[in-house]
């Protein structure tokens, strides 16, 4: 359980699609001309990586909210509401 957003577990999950994208040129189906479903395999691979990225971030968000992040978000919202009610538009001087 960790309320640290960038916990090792969450960073590991996030790194899966990142590594998948970086190594793209070295994948055997990309380094040789290949078509999948009429499309270049590299295009299909990148589309899959986009989907994987969305999925990874959804998983990370759920674990974060479940492990205390939801409470932190609630506190932040309360702080923002209090600041807005007080009419404190920050200006730096």
């Amino acid at each position, binding site marked *: 359980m960790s309320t640290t957003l960038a916990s090792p577990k969450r960073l590991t999950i996030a790194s899966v699609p*990142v590594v998948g994208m970086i190594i793209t040129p070295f994948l055997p189906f*990309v380094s040789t001309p290949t078509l999948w479903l009429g499309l270049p395999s590299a295009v299909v691979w990148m589309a899959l990586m*986009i989907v994987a990225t969305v999925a990874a*971030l959804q998983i990370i968000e759920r674990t974060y909210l479940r492990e205390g992040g939801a409470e932190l978000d609630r506190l932040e919202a309360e702080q*923002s509401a209090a600041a807005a009610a007080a009419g404190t*538009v920050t200006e*730096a*001087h």
Partner: protein
Amino acid sequence: MLTVAIIIGILGIGALGVAGRRRQTELSSWTVGKRDLPRWTSWFLQAGESLTTFSFLGLAGIAFGGGVAALFAVAYLTINCVIQYFVIPRQRELGANRGYLTMADFFKDRFKSKALGKTVALVGAVFLIPYLQLQITGLGMIVQLATGSESARGYSMAVASVLVVVFVIWAGIRGLAKVAVFKDFAMLAALVIVLAGVIAGIGGIPDIFAKIMDTAPSYLTISRPGFDATFWVTSVIVTSIGAGLNTFPHLWPPVLAAKSGAVLRDNVKWLSVYQFLLLIPITAGIAGTLVLDPKTKGNFVLLGVAQHTLPEPLIAVIAIGGAAAAMVPAGAIAMGISSLVSNNLLSVKNPKLRFRINHVVVAVAVGLALAFGLAKSDIGALLLLTYGGLTQMAPAVAIAIGRKVRIGAVPVNLGIVVGTLCVAVITFGNIPTGGVDSGLISLAPNLAVLAIAELVRRRRHPAGAGTQADDVDAPLAGQAAVGAGA
């Protein structure tokens, strides 16, 4: 007729920026509103960097020359979302607690150094000018290619520049947000039209790639000259680091203006779906190899394919979408430059005077970029510095978002200066790098100088070598004001 339609479209975009907005009267509300932008407003502002003139002109051109290697843009923009998910909520939290208006405020506060704040402001403002010119020149190029008229290019650049100045000065970030909504829908329409044109005029997508497989299979691998695996890996890594850690000053206002960190997280966890749209110009660029002269310049490819396949009214829609894709980033960049200069570079205490100077800087920055664009001045080399140079601030950002900042301002400042000089020497000295991105290479001396200078600092001042800035949980927005004027 086409020219008139496009100019009317550009005027409409400008009108949208000022319509229904009261004139902003102070720098903070102009830059970050009331720090309460809701999800969808933040969404369209954050999406700004995904769809720009580069999507229209550059990407199809890279695909025309490098084939599927153009997917590197899809890769770094997607990785950018992953890194930003962890980084920008923290930047927003610090900004709300400490009253930042700019990226330079963040550096100045976290490292307790006015000099570092000024360095970051100077580097940011200078490097953003070529990026601003790129948008305005790109807009002119889109109009010229669509209409075939050289004079239409100049008129459209001038009209769009004036409108950007007006709506940015008048409405600030909220005006920008309104135009950003239009821009995303206009670009979606334009790209779908391009795709329809490719299918109708050249052939079905599977047929196109089957022909490419027969005639030039290297377009289907990441191996064409200049677009090999080294290019891919180094470009993706360095751009992901720079963009992910938010080292572009003009991208800070949307982050600082967001209602909460949760809003930013919610957005970036979905924003990568935008990259599906980039597959369209890449497909059009590769398809262009079947119908265009091989000597066609990269920037001409997308509109060349469109002209080859589409009727005139649809070309106008594409051109207006392209114009919007230029005007929104141009507005954001002008805001970024002006706030850095008026808030961080100049020491103006009087808020009203500071805000007036800010307006002048918006006009001067856009005017300069327009003048460079109209004169066709080649400041493109400076643009090469923009990406690599701004990425040199990435180590400092990574250090500063920690709970405690234990590295000194001088080492960080030296690292940024050395890294940036290194990028400049490699770029202007035409030093061969074997395809490795100069920004990535320059991060090595940047980090080395930072580490050595920090060791020296700790030896000289062992007692003062500890924390530069603690976490700042306590002060609420409005109670602490560090952002500037000095």
